[in-house]
């Protein structure tokens, strides 16, 4: 999926969360968004998800302007995006498997293929022994991996990962990054990832967008 930010600004009352942001994410591209807390990283992801609309400028995904899009168009776009939220956003009274199943049901994944897809992604994130547990029975790292499995299950065109390594130990962080890189390379899936981890950024030769106080500082 292709994402374009064109002179995007977002204000919350008198607070300016994003100012005049311009960048492109081409199909199959992997980019990092970095910046301190309050820099506007989450606001940027919310704009991509269509949760909020820009105060000015335009956010387009595959040539659909989210500011002008109808609700059902935004729903359709969201069904193509795999999101890994910072706070996991797993449904508390559903098991890991049921959380993944819900995502597959939403995207109307073929029923006869669902179980094998669930098995596949659970294995990929190494959660086979935890598949029937509820989020409250999982550690932070396991919840993060469950959220990743849910995002991957739908075979997304774009993965949005909001601080996905924030709650993981070093080994699991690298495993997750490797997984995202593999998916990016194998399936030509675009990835937008926010992170504070400079080691990860340095280890991959990818485009980096630096945000500070809602403004784009640099683009590598």
């Amino acid at each position, binding site marked *: 999926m292709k994402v374009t930010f064109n002179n995007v600004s977002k204000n919350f009352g008198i607070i300016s969360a994003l100012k005049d942001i311009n960048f492109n994410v081409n199909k199959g591209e992997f980019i990092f968004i970095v910046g301190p807390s309050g820099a506007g990283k989450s606001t940027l992801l919310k704009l991509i998800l269509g949760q909020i609309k820009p105060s000015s400028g335009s956010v387009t995904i595959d040539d659909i302007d989210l500011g002008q899009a109808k609700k059902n168009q935004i*729903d359709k776009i969201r*069904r193509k995006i795999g999101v890994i939220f910072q706070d996991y956003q797993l449904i508390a009274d*559903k098991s890991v498997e049921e959380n993944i199943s819900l995502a597959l049901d*939403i995207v109307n994944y073929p029923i006869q293929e669902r179980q094998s897809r669930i098995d596949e992604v659970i294995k990929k994130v190494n959660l086979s022994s935890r598949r029937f547990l509820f989020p409250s029975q999982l550690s932070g790292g396991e919840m993060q991996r469950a959220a990743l499995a849910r995002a991957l299950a739908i075979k997304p065109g774009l993965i949005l990962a909001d601080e996905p390594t924030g709650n993981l130990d070093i080994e699991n962080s690298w495993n997750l990054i490797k997984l995202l890189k593999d998916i990016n390379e194998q399936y030509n899936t675009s990835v937008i990832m926010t992170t504070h981890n400079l080691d990860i950024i340095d280890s991959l030769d990818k485009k980096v967008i630096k945000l500070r106080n809602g403004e784009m500082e640099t683009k590598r």
Partner: protein
Amino acid sequence: MNTTKSTWHHIRRSPFQSLTAILIMIITFFLLTTFLVISDGMSSVLKYFETKPEVTIYLKDGLDKNTMDNLQKELSNYPDVKEIKFISKEKALAIYKEQNKSNPMLTEMVTASILPASFEVSVSDPAVLEQIAQNFSAKGTVVDEIIYQKDMITSILKWTSIIRKSGIITVSVTAVISFLIISVIIGMKITNRKEEINISRLLGASKHYVKKSFLLEGIFYGFFGGLVGTAISYALFYKFSQQINTFFQPIIFIRDNYSLYGLIFLGEIILGIIIGYTASWFGSKRYIKF
């Protein structure tokens, strides 16, 4: 996760709210069925009296044969008289025993002497009944009592109307209460599951997708309430039908009209589904705004 599974999950997660919704629906449909069956019975009572224009003249005890013959002759002189039946004390006893054969307690103590002899006069023109009734009520020395069906029909009509009106009011009020309760319960469930709905929306679920399990839940309450409420009412009528029919003899108050009862059953289930669906639609429309 299919919708049915999700709906069942919602029901199990808040059993008391679900139970409340089902109970109110059961009460509504129990009352509706009960009033419909009673109303049908009252129609049978009315029809019985309307299709039998009759006046019954109960005679005083100790009248000689000559007097009774004169009375019968006088009755036969009226125009449009179809039939005059003389019911002797003995025959009255036989009829009484036949009507109460299932209850020996009622027949044991009764003898022919305590039952009055009577003339049952049926006519083809109900207007004649009024003349006969007026003229014979003046014969206080020979006539003990006149049962004139015009009064009875007026009275039955009045009672039928009261029962129907109170039925309509009661059922309407309970139906509105059911509607509001289901609507509020669905609203509460939506509020309880707001986080799940928000997550589903972020994953791309349409509004209809998140609503449909709640709509199905309302349909379930309506269907189940209609089914159980009607079934309980039928079961009670079935159990007491003999006693009720004995009370109304010779009129069959609870008829063996299975096609009618089947239609009522089907109609009420459909009505239940409509109430449940519209109530949950109303509730979900109010609460799912994100």
